[in-house]
């Protein structure tokens, strides 16, 4: 079972890399999907470089969300920050409720077209799962364990670093994984404001009624999401090893 899953993942990775490296080799597969002899493979830009900038945008936005959400989660679970929990929760929830498209609409007039509005939209959208999971992880630390940490003379910072964060890490990583996967899909809308990414392929397909383009953009995005999801799962499992 476990072996089969690994082989499947490697196969997905292989197909994805092969397609990005030499998309034209796959042309016969996509040709039946479009009419009037339109190109079967996206030809208005390099697919590999689009995929890379898509990934870089998502990773950068999620990294920023992680930093802010974990720091905020740690802060509101300290005695000094407890009063800010409701406020932080509201802010983070707004980030999630506000549709990324709307964020784009608001930020473009402020920061102009390109990568920046997409980064902002993804950053705001990704905060909630990481923030909530950080809080859940920190609050799930068993009370006797924390009391033992205090009783043995750990300072608040030592307790956070060597007990609370390691114990919360599986849940925090789960939050990061959720954000990452959601944002891989969401990032495609960035192309409406001229961010470089796989959305470009999909939009080009929609505009020219080219189903092959739409499918290529969608498939590459989807496969990247699957691989990231699995990669994060592997990372999480490493952290669960010691805990009950």
């Amino acid at each position, binding site marked *: 079972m476990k072996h089969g899953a690994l082989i499947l993942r490697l196969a997905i990775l292989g197909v994805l890399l092969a397609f990005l490296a030499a998309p034209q080799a796959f042309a016969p597969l996509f040709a039946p999907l479009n009419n009037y002899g339109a190109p079967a493979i996206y030809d208005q830009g390099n697919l590999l470089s689009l995929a890379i900038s898509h990934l870089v945008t998502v990773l950068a936005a999620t990294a920023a969300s992680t930093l802010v959400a974990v720091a905020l989660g740690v802060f509101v679970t300290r005695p000094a920050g407890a009063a800010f929990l409701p406020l932080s929760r509201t802010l983070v929830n707004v980030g999630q409720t506000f549709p990324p498209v709307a964020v784009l609409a608001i930020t473009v007039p402020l920061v102009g077209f390109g990568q920046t509005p997409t980064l902002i939209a993804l950053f705001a959208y990704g905060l909630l799962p990481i923030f909530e999971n950080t809080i859940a992880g920190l609050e799930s630390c*068993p009370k*006797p364990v924390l009391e033992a940490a205090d*009783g043995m003379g750990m300072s608040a910072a030592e307790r956070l670093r060597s007990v609370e964060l390691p114990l919360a890490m599986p849940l925090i990583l789960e939050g990061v994984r959720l954000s990452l996967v959601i944002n891989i899909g969401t990032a495609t809308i960035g192309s409406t404001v001229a961010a470089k990414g796989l959305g470009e392929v999909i939009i080009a397909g929609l505009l020219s009624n080219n189903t092959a383009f739409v499918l290529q953009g969608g498939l590459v995005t989807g496969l990247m999401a699957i691989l990231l999801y699995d990669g994060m799962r592997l990372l999480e499992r490493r952290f669960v090893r*010691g805990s*009950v």
Partner: protein
Amino acid sequence: MITLEHLTRRYDDSTVVDDVSMVIEPRTITTIVGTSGSGKSTLLRMINRLVEPTSGRVLIDGRDTRAEPAHLLRRRIGYAIQGLGLFPHRTVAENIATVPRLLGWDEARVRARVDELLGVFQLEPGAYAAKYPHELSGGQQQRVGVARALAAEPQLLLMDEPFGALDPIIRAKAQDDLLDIQRRFGTTVILVTHDMDEAFRLGDRVAVMSRGRLLQYDRPAQLITQPADPFVSQLIGSTDRSLKLLSLTTAGEAAEPGATDGPTVQSSASLRDVLAELVWSGATVAKVVGPDHAVVGRLSLASILARGRRAT
């Protein structure tokens, strides 16, 4: 020597610990016993400042515990609690090494100490050092919890219901281990329990608490023969107080010189056990032998009965 001076802790309107003063001799075991809500755990936690007193102070060897930051104070005081609080993400060896590492011991010294303690607690280092807490039995976890509390060679060890979660057989073994280790390291132990038998078995002195007040602080025999308060006699129970009194003395302490051919008892057995043996065998005299099987002396039924009689 630990001196508690007029310790009081209030939460809003309720007084959890009310003006408790006591002096704890070094290298002894003091047990604090009381019902739940009696303030015994709070009293213990004021000694290492997990709870700050509302008023009063704690002196360890004459030095006020507030003279240094709380977390530095706690590194010098061992602390073991019910439910152990072992770190689930750290191995047995890493758990035990916690305080030595906080104190900045070098790795060789830490490793030597961890191996020594694993040996003392009958956990073969090769087999157990790299295990995680959830891979151990309840009794083994408990031993690791105490080993961790002793790791930095503290002169004072605080224990809050450390054996509460153990079944009776493992519990008795853990109590024996604690007595051995206390003798071996000469640690001053303060142990909180709600179990009167445990308090009597382990304590050189027993402090009885109720509703935040210290009712009596004395040697176990004194508590049985001269209870200072109706609550103390109620807690001890009146039906078997003679037997409780007998259980405080060992056969070795009470043996009289002379030879006999009665049933053989170990000098470490309590008079209560010797009495039971005499009743069972129908004999009137028992032969007391030491750990090396050499005869220590004799114990007659009459002398045992005399020791269980109310002091007049």
